[in-house]
């Protein structure tokens, strides 16, 4: 090239390069890396106004999404019904160890010290169900997921989980049922408010015909739950929807010990506390839980 018409020719050459297509796995890889990363801010608990209307289609769409995820976890392994719900209430005693030192708390986080000096922590130690759950490293790791933590601190969730158990979850965790609930004709029947008709539809009927789940799907408990303001509030909440799509969350709510731990609200308060996760990594916290487990 003997001479450039500087801008036009250069621009044409650069334009000729075109965009580069990113690797097809880039989004997935990024999301896989960020999911374990907790957000820096404590997750706020959102409240929703009463009286919001929403389409049943949306409700059922979310229910189906949750069902599929629960189904996945049913395949991977689901805690046996009743396990952990039998926590006995023993003589709880307030933890009275010596004051915390810097080395007891990861990175010397002052918020951890504050948390362990708080009433919330004292109440936590008196709650056998919460103590049992927090003594499980797997559960603690799961609730570090910010969407899980946020959703668990939603007071409506505890109500909803209690409503669903023990009736619905055994039905939802069935893969064929979850698949059937996504069928348009089933959704249409559900939208019409006719659960009895819905379970007569092809795939759903086949899915439930030999399982006795048909009765569960038409149970008053399920009908009430799906038409309740609590359920509507939950599925209007994008954070809750994100959690429902999270395999980690599915694993958490599949843990039947959670129902018991959510009863008092103490666990939820602890999860919403600033210093909770810093404290939970300290030896002092583990020692306090251990002493209370033994005391109970």
């Amino acid at each position, binding site marked *: *090239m*003997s*001479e*450039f018409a*500087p*801008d036009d*020719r*250069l*621009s044409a*050459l*650069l*334009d*000729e*390069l075109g*965009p*580069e*297509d*990113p*690797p097809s796995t*880039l*989004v997935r*890889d*990024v*999301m896989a*890396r*960020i*999911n374990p*990363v907790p*957000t*820096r*801010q404590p*997750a*706020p608990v*959102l409240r929703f106004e009463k009286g919001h209307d929403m389409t049943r289609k949306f409700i059922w769409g979310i229910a189906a999404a949750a069902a599929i995820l629960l189904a996945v976890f049913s395949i991977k392994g689901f805690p046996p019904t009743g396990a952990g719900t039998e926590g006995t209430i023993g003589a709880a005693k307030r933890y009275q160890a010596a004051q915390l030192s810097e080395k007891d708390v990861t990175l010397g986080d002052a918020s951890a010290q504050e948390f362990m000096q708080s009433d919330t922590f004292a109440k936590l130690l008196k709650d056998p169900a919460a103590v049992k759950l927090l003594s499980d490293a797997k559960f603690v790791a799961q609730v570090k997921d*910010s*969407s899980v*933590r*946020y959703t668990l601190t939603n007071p409506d969730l505890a109500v909803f989980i209690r409503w669903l158990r023990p009736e619905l979850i055994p039905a939802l965790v069935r893969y064929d049922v979850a698949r059937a609930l996504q069928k348009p004709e089933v959704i249409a029947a559900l939208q019409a408010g006719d659960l009895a008709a819905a379970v007569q539809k092809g795939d759903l009927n086949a899915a439930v015909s030999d399982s006795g789940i048909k009765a569960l799907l038409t149970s008053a408990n399920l009908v009430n739950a799906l038409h309740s303001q609590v359920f509507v509030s939950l599925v209007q909440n*994008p*954070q809750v929807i*994100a959690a429902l*799509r*999270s395999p980690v969350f599915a694993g958490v709510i599949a843990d039947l010990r959670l129902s018991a731990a959510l009863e008092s609200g103490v666990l939820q308060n602890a999860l919403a506390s600033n210093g909770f996760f810093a404290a939970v990594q300290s030896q002092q916290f583990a020692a306090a839980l251990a002493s209370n487990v033994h005391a109970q």
Partner: protein
Amino acid sequence: MYLTEDADDQSLVRQCMAGDPASFEGLVQRYQRVFFTLAVRMLGDREDASDAVQNAFVKIYEKLHTYDPDRRFFSWAYRILVNECFNARRARRPVEPISGDLPATDNPLATLEIEERRQLVRQALLALSFEHREVLVLRHFTELSYDEIGSTLDLPVATVKSRLHSARQRLARLLLGMEIES
């Protein structure tokens, strides 16, 4: 050309800040192409670019609480991408020119000529200083205005213009040396 409008960026950022990590996927989807294009042009290597873009998105997520919503999201996020490109450049293996597989065509000779020309342009870009390459790449592959480039690079508009002019001159000289047919 490659930079989408960021009308919904603020909404996605707010959802992330409210503790909804899933909404971050929307931002990744939106910016992955332009970020990857910029990183490839900066680094000249797809693997390095992919690593840099991944690292940048993770850091963007971690630093989201420091983002000032009065700024354009792209401008803020781009600084993080550039830092990751610098890091990748420091740790990089020897540069291998990008090899592009030639697409099937009815006119293979013409295709070959175009691909050779593209290869020379890529090499010339990589021969520029990082500062020159950066401003040129931003101008051509994001179509940001001079003002926006200035905001993104934290430079006065006059400096953007003069740097862009120098970068073009330098690129032109490099391409002339490579004897690109006009």
